[in-house]
């Protein structure tokens, strides 16, 4: 299965991925309208360690703790993609409590949200990958380490 991977060697810390993500998931067709003068709730975020920056988003674990821990049964795996049913989520953030990567965060309504690989939004392919100016985020198939 294709997943989003980050290569910190090429990450510039420009944070464009966050804005592209927020826009792709806004449901709007104009970035200005979608993001201007509003706090953004991207599903990918840039972390910094000294001079190194890198993007973190859902790893789509094979055995995800968030799915097992969701008190509302709102998180499920569909064809390998871990998805949150926002209408069922009550915002208890147990998924935030258990995600070992810190990749799940509350969204604008309080419901938890995370990267769902842009498979269902207008972008159609991960917006963070598409918009990364330096190929620091890639969308590809990798083998499991034995």
């Amino acid at each position: 299965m294709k997943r989003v991977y980050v290569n910190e060697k090429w990450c510039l810390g420009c944070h464009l991925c966050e804005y592209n993500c927020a826009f792709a998931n806004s449901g709007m067709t104009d970035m200005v309208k979608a993001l201007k003068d509003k706090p953004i709730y991207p599903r990918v975020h840039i972390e910094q360690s000294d001079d190194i920056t890198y993007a973190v988003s859902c790893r789509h674990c094979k055995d995800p703790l968030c799915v097992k821990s969701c008190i509302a049964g709102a998180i499920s795996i569909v064809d390998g993609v871990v998805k949150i049913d926002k209408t069922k989520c009550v915002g208890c953030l147990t998924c935030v409590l258990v995600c070992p990567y810190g990749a799940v965060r509350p969204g604008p309504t309080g419901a938890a949200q995370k990267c769902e690989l842009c498979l269902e939004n207008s972008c159609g392919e991960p917006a963070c990958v598409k918009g990364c100016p330096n190929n620091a985020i890639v969308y590809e198939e990798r083998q499991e380490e034995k």
Partner: protein
Amino acid sequence: MSKFVIIGNGVAAAGCIEGIRSIDKESEITVISAEKHPVYSRPLISYYLEGKTTLEKMNYRSEDFYEKNKAELVYASAEKIDLKKGEVAFGSKKTKFDKLCIAAGSSPFVPPMDGLDSVKEKFTFMTMDDSLALEKALKKDSRVLIVGAGLIGLKCAEGILERVGSVTVVDLADRVLSSILDNECAAVMQKHLESKGMKFLLSDSVAKLETDKAVMKSGKTVEFDVLVLAVGVRANTQLAKDAGAEVNRGIIIDTKMQTTLENVYAAGDCTEGYDSSIDANRVLAILPNAYMQGFCAGVNMAGGDSSITNAIPMNSIGFFGLHCTSAGSYFAQGEGEVYEEKSCGGIKRLYIKDNKLTGYIIIGDVTGAGIYTRIIREKTDLSGVNIDKLKNNATLAMFLPETRRKMLGGVV
């Protein structure tokens, strides 16, 4: 072909069904449910009262869950386990089993209270039916007295606060959420709850109930219309005990979820399993644990091999938009380092001992808290972690670059 029987129909039972089906797609499964509902998310009963979910959305799994998993759901109370015959009796019927999973959950504990019989509107707060019953009794000007300032009591209080006249919470402990918060954090949370209009009587208890009045040990009196008893819960262990299983506060299970009886497994709130944060067995009555135990039991029942060795207490709970996550174990002052950071309306406390993070509490911005939970679960040695960064922020930046690259670089 085997025959599987699950007693109970909560999240642990759902986990057990899914665990069995991850290995065995065919064998018969019978689920005996005392509650007359398909599996629902029990912690959502307070969200229901608050209007944040609906009865329909409270269903833990889709409508076709039992059908899809070829599980027979029977609404009845399991009465007896006959080990010799390999049978469970329920109602007037019996069913055979090859492997049995007890996922019977827990029940509210109602302490003996002087004058309790005189109270007309009294409720426990555990099941969907409890919630529906309580809802009927609530009026716009009801004065509600809740006994118990734990997770259940406070979630109930949050759920109804906007719907009633007043809510007073009484607890014998000197702080709110005493099972998951230390003094400092409890004070922050209490202040927040009070700012929303809740009233607290702590280090106090009900001495006597008189119809619509509670007289406290301290001598204070509280008038009320509705009484909610949320003192605590007790694991449902009787069936297992009668069948001869070893039982303490819960049904004793090993790391494979097997009880001391052959072919009998147990999962969820009724069990006492291994807690790696204290290196001993204890009841960990939390939902994630129930599911994982159920799943693990199911896998083992179906002939697979699964075990859980890293269960720890952990909680995520929020009240009126203020979130609180906590995990692991805390220690008394002086036994290790407690790092504390206060922010606007929030607090973070990290318990560090013997080069390990043993526990943490965050109230407020809980972003990334799962990374702290992870290093507690994995008992990560902090010599491979940048402690300053760990304290500063819950991000992957705290790990060595190679560790981090590995975490982010492959299939996990």
